[in-house]
């Protein structure tokens, strides 16, 4: 630059003496550097560098500053609090998050780390981390796509499991609480995130079938067909996880996540649109079954701390994720309007002492408490019916059964037998919510 007379000799000397600072990032002058990073990457798939850098392109993004601020604030506040509570080293904990619109796939907010002004490593896009139990819904969905064999009430075997590979290696997954839980209906096994019953279910279905489901959900990266995949021993970035959960949240439609809607020239000539496209990947009925199970995760399972803050009448569907030795803490969840995915962990991959519920869930909850979102709800009625079920047996319940729950079924797949607790007394008919509304 000095040779081109762009800067003088003195400035050149000073510049040469400075460190490059690669990897440590720098305080960017602009706001939202992590989100802009995504915008730049999505532009670069369609524009050459010189197009982007030429002056005057007008880029219309999907950013919602209110959501972005809420996400940044929550990440900072919660990670500070957690470090104080745990008495752990300050500043070691990191996090990332993505918030999108459930139906349109618009990226509303993206945080690449704890410090929102930091324009360096973007964890939302580049930190590949083990996903743990976030993968489990794909195993259950694979099963639920065979309503002749599996329903949300089907009992799964959670007794100890030892699986031998052909080469002699033994795999014996354990539950987080180190207990086994006998026979558990499917919706409860997911709600409590039991590893053993999930692993057994996945092995029965076959790894290829589960991988096929993950592909349909929009997972593109390489997946190793090892049994540990069933419990999430595979890495994804928070953005990739968001893509997968967007398919659940949108009722089975793969919806590309867009940060840009249009690019105009300096004189407002439209250059390029980034249109909204969807692709039906999972039948809406099956999406509804797995989303109902994820609603129970939040109502009665590992995600129930959500309702310490969110109003009880707001339905949320979601899943916690915790990896070995508490290295990664995840929460992915959606309302009727928005999907959020949060990751908390350390850059050096050391244990954090956090589960999905004690780390990422708290950040997610803060963010979503600031919204007035509508509830996640069932949207399919044709070909489906609701029944009262006794969780202990997975059979039909009546009002003598104290713990009866209402579950949706593909028509004709529900159990026909009554549970022992049933005495013939009648429960209010399982409401077909939407037909009721149309009366």
């Amino acid at each position, binding site marked *: *630059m000095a040779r081109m007379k762009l800067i003088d000799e003195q400035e050149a000397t000073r510049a040469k003496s400075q460190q490059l600072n690669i990897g440590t990032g720098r305080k*960017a002058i*602009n706001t939202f550097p992590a989100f*802009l990073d995504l915008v*730049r990457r999505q532009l670069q798939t369609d524009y050459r*560098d010189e197009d*982007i*850098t*030429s*002056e*005057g*392109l*007008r*880029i*219309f*993004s*999907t*950013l*919602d*500053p209110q959501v972005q601020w809420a996400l940044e604030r929550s990440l900072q506040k919660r990670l500070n609090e957690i470090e104080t509570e745990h008495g752990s080293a300050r500043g070691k904990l990191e996090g990332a998050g993505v918030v999108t*619109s459930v*139906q*349109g796939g*618009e990226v509303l907010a993206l945080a690449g780390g704890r410090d929102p002004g930091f324009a360096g490593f973007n964890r939302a896009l580049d930190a590949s981390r083990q996903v743990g139990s976030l993968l489990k819904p794909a195993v259950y969905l694979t099963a639920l796509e065979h309503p002749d064999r599996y329903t949300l009430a089907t009992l799964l075997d959670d007794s100890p499991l030892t699986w031998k590979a052909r080469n002699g290696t033994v795999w014996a997954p354990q539950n987080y609480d180190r207990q086994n839980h006998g026979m558990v209906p499917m919706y409860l096994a997911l709600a409590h995130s039991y590893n053993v019953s999930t692993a057994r279910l996945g092995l029965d279905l076959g790894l290829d079938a589960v991988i096929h489901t993950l592909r349909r959900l929009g997972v593109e990266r390489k997946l190793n067909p090892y049994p540990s995949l069933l419990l999430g021993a595979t890495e994804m970035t928070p953005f990739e996880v968001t893509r997968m959960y967007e398919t659940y949240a949108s009722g*089975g*439609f793969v919806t590309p996540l867009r940060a840009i*809607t249009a690019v105009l020239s300096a004189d407002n000539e439209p250059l390029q*649109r980034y*249109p*909204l*496209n*969807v692709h*039906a990947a999972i039948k809406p009925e099956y999406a509804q079954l797995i989303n109902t199970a994820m*609603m*129970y995760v939040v*109502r009665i399972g590992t995600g*129930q701390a959500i*309702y310490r*803050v*969110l*109003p*009880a*009448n707001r*339905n949320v569907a979601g899943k916690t994720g915790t990896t070995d030795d508490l290295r990664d803490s995840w929460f992915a969840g959606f309302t*009727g*309007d928005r999907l959020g995915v949060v990751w908390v962990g350390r850059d050096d991959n050391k244990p954090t002492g956090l589960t999905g519920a004690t780390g990422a869930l708290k950040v997610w909850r803060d963010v979503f*408490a*600031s919204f007035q979102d509508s*509830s996640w*709800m*069932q*949207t*399919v009625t*044709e070909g489906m019916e609701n029944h009262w079920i006794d969780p202990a047996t997975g059979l039909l319940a009546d009002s003598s059964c104290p713990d*009866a*729950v*209402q579950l949706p079924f593909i028509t004709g797949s529900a159990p026909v037998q009554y549970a022992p607790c049933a005495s013939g007394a009648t429960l209010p008919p399982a409401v077909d*919510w*939407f037909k009721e*509304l149309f009366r």
Partner: protein
Amino acid sequence: MSVLRFRAGLLWPALLLLLQGCAPAYYSPREPRLPPPVVEQGTQPPVTQPAQVPPASVITPEPLPAQRPQSPAVVALLDTAERQANSGDLESAAASLERAIGIDGRNPVLWYHLATVRLAQGNAKEAEQLARKSTSLAPGNSVQQARNWELIARARQAQDDIRGAAAAEQRARDLAGR
């Protein structure tokens, strides 16, 4: 490094201007910012509540999207899209509909109109997917579902899928007869 710096120097101000000038940035700077979507119910519960959660069996769903009051912004965007489509500017009409979906994504009517525009643009495959999306959001609404299946029939005809088109037409007739 100088190349990188050069890039950053020009790109970021361009982005920054847009992002700050018209937040949320998908609104055109020449138009006033749209009002937020209408809140569905008159009173919203307080954000913080005690840790009491009702048993899952008594969860009550909210009204269907079709029964929600339509936000004035969505109505205005629908009008705009119709005007644009009628004047032959299909791409702008699609953009308006996408903005409306950004506000009220669970409204099956918006997805149906977007499917119609895509079909008119000759994009039959996408049109069918969008019509299916509309159907998935219109439970119990046989009128909307019949419309979607009619559109799917036309989309399949456009792709020379004669048998598929006939099947879709039959479904539309069955639904219309309900």
